[in-house]
């Protein structure tokens, strides 16, 4: 039942772009047909997921497939379901949003292409999530990856877009090649490409480690775990916003899914694995948000913030792995539930933020934070949505981000160990790191929200602001509702998370504690409501006081300065300056300013940027060096036929002397 619905949804999504391709580039019917198909498909898919959760039954669809080792085998289980929801939901919202954001009439060049690959991206992701056969998984993976490439390079007439797309393509292909090796090893161990848990005896430690490392590289590249994130920031920045939304919200989660799925197949993981994963999570989390603080490109900032949240998710997974190595079911449940829930939460608020950013960019035509300001008056709804997203992504109550981080905190504190059972206290140091991440996130989003929406417009870009069309606000509203709902009623999704966890660690299916027993989700609901009530009360009081007292308007108090101008406002860069300084050892900020200032003040300029350290100082140099090295081999092919004949002769002698 649920499989059928999901498959149907996949097919519809995959073909949703075709009608548009057949119509001419100026007709708007294409975009309506596409959206209709995509929405229908997504609805079916969501229906399938819902059917799975309500009935809990799944009949795998198994068909023979004449590829060597291939078998068409799809099934929905707890994990798949958790990842399917974001896929279809964001695809649905993104398509609707696209109606207003990327009108065919405004983008005749690439509108059809974008919609086509938006559909295939959805289909690929959904397929890979329900695939139970390695080859099928690989198919879904690559369809997703290539669609992603074409979506990133939607506006390929721009040089920056081309370069970004290229970096992305290389990264994703490296990941694919690692997957080749990974699946081959799995097949060598288990004897088939079926994605089923391996028997402990079928696997030598060496093979197990190899599989683990390969999956870290392959899926880490996709998920954007620091330091494998090099493709991510620019790709999210230059793609159309609803593409960024699905890429950052769903696409990179496929890396997480892969990691979760593969780790679920490997029997009794060593303790180091969990430690490594946890450490990677901490690094991505802290450095990701630190880089985010330093950015002044709205979407680039959000992209780095995705790296941070991936870090949090990975921390949860690491905790769960540690729990499995030490047989601590409570750590498994808290860690994995937190991780999976954060997958959802990040999907919701990050998509929300990207969509709001898109609506800003659509209105002002710039991504430069320091050119914006004061938009809250022109586009109040966008501002509100962004604010909700910002509060949620900082993990602040009473919104959803808090819940998942809360679970992970509980697990991390748990690693201190109680009276009975083993402990792994060094993991507990991740808790302060998580606190640091939270505080940095607050700094980051205070900065971006205020700089974009509050204060006064800093440039003419921000003057022609206007609220976006309902087709763009609507999807944001839906996401706002999701954020609030999960934040206030986490109990609702506890069973869903439970299914996910038991799919990862089957022995916890019936035995072991429940999430509700380990974490006071009811208290979270209660406190959330209390908080809201308190805020309303306080607001009411203030409002009442202001009603009954003289209130006048005036200019901002400039501390006596006579002629303040918008350009004298604190810019986002200056806001972040101290923090960037604290992290300069990793961020390596670049500042451009005149050498020495003249005696008398005159017009000068200063600007600072935080480029990606790993990309600019490790990856690109390495590639250029390689190319330089290879260029030396060209002397072998100078065009003289005599030399060529000599090669043949040499090869002949060499092979004759081989043995």
């Amino acid at each position: 039942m649920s499989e059928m619905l999901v498959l149907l949804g996949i097919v519809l999504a995959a073909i949703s772009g075709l009608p548009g391709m057949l119509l001419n580039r100026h007709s708007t019917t294409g975009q309506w047909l596409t959206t209709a198909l995509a929405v229908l498909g997504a609805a079916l898919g969501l229906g399938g997921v819902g059917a799975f959760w309500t009935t809990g039954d799944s009949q795998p669809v198994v068909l023979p497939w004449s590829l060597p080792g291939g078998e068409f085998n799809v099934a929905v289980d707890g994990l798949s379901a958790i990842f399917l929801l974001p896929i279809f939901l964001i695809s649905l919202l993104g398509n609707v949003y696209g109606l207003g954001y990327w009108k065919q009439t405004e983008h005749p060049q690439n509108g059809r292409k974008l919609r086509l690959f938006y559909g295939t991206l959805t289909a690929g992701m959904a397929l890979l999530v329900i695939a139970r056969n390695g080859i099928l998984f690989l198919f879904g993976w690559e369809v997703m990856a290539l669609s992603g490439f074409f979506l990133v390079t939607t506006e390929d007439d721009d040089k920056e877009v081309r370069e970004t797309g290229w970096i992305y393509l290389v990264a994703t292909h490296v990941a694919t090649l690692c997957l080749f090796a990974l699946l081959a090893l799995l097949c060598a161990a288990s004897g088939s490409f079926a994605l089923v848990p391996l028997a402990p005896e079928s696997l030598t430690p060496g093979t197990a480690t190899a599989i683990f490392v390969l999956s870290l590289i392959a899926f880490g590249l996709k998920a954007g775990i620091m330091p494998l994130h090099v493709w991510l920031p620019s790709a999210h920045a230059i793609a159309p916003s609803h593409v960024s939304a699905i890429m950052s919200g769903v696409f990179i989660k496929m890396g997480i899914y892969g990691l979760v799925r593969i780790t679920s197949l490997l029997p009794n993981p060593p303790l180091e694995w969990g430690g490594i994963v946890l450490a990677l999570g901490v690094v991505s989390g802290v450095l990701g948000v630190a880089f985010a603080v330093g950015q002044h490109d709205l979407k680039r900032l959000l992209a780095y913030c995705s790296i941070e949240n991936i870090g949090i998710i990975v921390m949860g997974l690491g905790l769960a792995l540690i729990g499995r190595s030490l047989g601590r079911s409570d750590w498994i449940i808290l860690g994995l539930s937190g991780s999976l829930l954060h997958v959802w939460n990040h999907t919701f608020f990050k998509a929300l933020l990207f969509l709001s950013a898109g609506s800003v960019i659509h209105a002002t035509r710039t991504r430069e934070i320091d050119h914006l300001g004061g938009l809250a008056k022109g586009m109040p709804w966008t501002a509100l949505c962004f604010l909700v997203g910002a509060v949620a992504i900082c993990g602040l109550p009473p919104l959803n981000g808090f819940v998942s981080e809360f679970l992970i905190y509980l697990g991390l504190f748990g690693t201190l160990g109680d009276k009975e059972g083993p402990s792994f206290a060094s993991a507990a140091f991740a808790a302060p790191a998580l606190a640091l991440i939270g505080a940095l996130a607050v700094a980051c989003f205070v900065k971006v929200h205020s700089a974009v929406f509050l204060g006064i417009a800093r440039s003419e870009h921000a003057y022609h602001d206007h609220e976006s069309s309902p087709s763009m606000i609507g999807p944001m509203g839906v996401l706002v509702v999701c954020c609030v709902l999960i934040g206030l009623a986490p109990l609702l999704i506890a069973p869903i998370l439970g299914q996910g966890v038991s799919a990862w660690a089957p022995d916890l299916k019936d035995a072991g504690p429940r999430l509700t027993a380990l974490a006071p989700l009811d208290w979270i609901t209660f406190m959330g409501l209390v908080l809201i009530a308190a805020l309303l009360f306080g607001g009411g009081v203030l409002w009442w006081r202001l009603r009954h007292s003289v209130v006048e308007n005036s200019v901002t108090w400039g501390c006596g300065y006579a002629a303040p101008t918008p350009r004298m406002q604190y810019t986002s860069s200056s806001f972040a300056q101290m923090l960037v300084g604290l992290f300069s050892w990793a961020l390596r900020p670049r500042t451009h300013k005149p050498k020495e200032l003249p005696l008398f003040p005159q017009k000068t300029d200063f600007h600072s940027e935080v480029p990606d350290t790993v990309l600019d100082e490790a990856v690109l140099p390495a590639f250029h060096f390689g190319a330089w090295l290879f260029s030396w081999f060209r002397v072998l092919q100078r065009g003289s036929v005599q030399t060529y004949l000599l090669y043949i002769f040499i090869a002949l002698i060499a092979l004759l002397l081989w043995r």
Partner: protein
Amino acid sequence: MVQLLDPLLIVALALNFVALGVSRIRAVINAVALQGILLGIMPLFVHPEIGLRGILLVVVTIGLKGFVIPRFLTHAMREANIQHEVKPVVNFMSSLLLGAVGTGLAVVFSYTLPLADEHTDSLLVPASLSTVWTGFLMLTTRQKAIMQVLGYLLLENGIFLFGLLLLEAMPFLVEVGVLLDLFTGVFVMGIIIYHINREFASISTEHLTELKE
């Protein structure tokens, strides 16, 4: 009659050195032609009891290797009106030396080869190897296209010499096929040389280094 074979082979070897040592293309062509004729008659000495097909084969070989191909090459040479290989990659003295060394090695090497008993004391294998070596030398050290074609011919001759060891393995049809391919090959090369000459007003392969990395 088999004892008459070795003198013929020695002559053939000598012709290799002529081909290596002289710069006049005409002379090289003649040397190769003569070698071709020698090769053509050799089957009679290897297998005295040779049948009609053998005779026919001999005639075809001599005709092609000894007369048709050389004529053709001479014609091409006239077309291109050049007489000499002016500056080879390796000068004539050194190429002679290389040829000598190669021949010596070939002889030594062929003694180490596990030959069938009836061939152990024959010069056939060393001659074949050294001729192949000579062909390679010409191919890799000569600038003029025609000289390279001649080198190719020498290479084929060397292989042909080895083929004499196992005439019965090579049916008539295949032999003829081989010869036919050889002829067509040279013919096409000749045409190309003609075009090269027309294109560059010279047949030196220095001009043919446009395509490279």
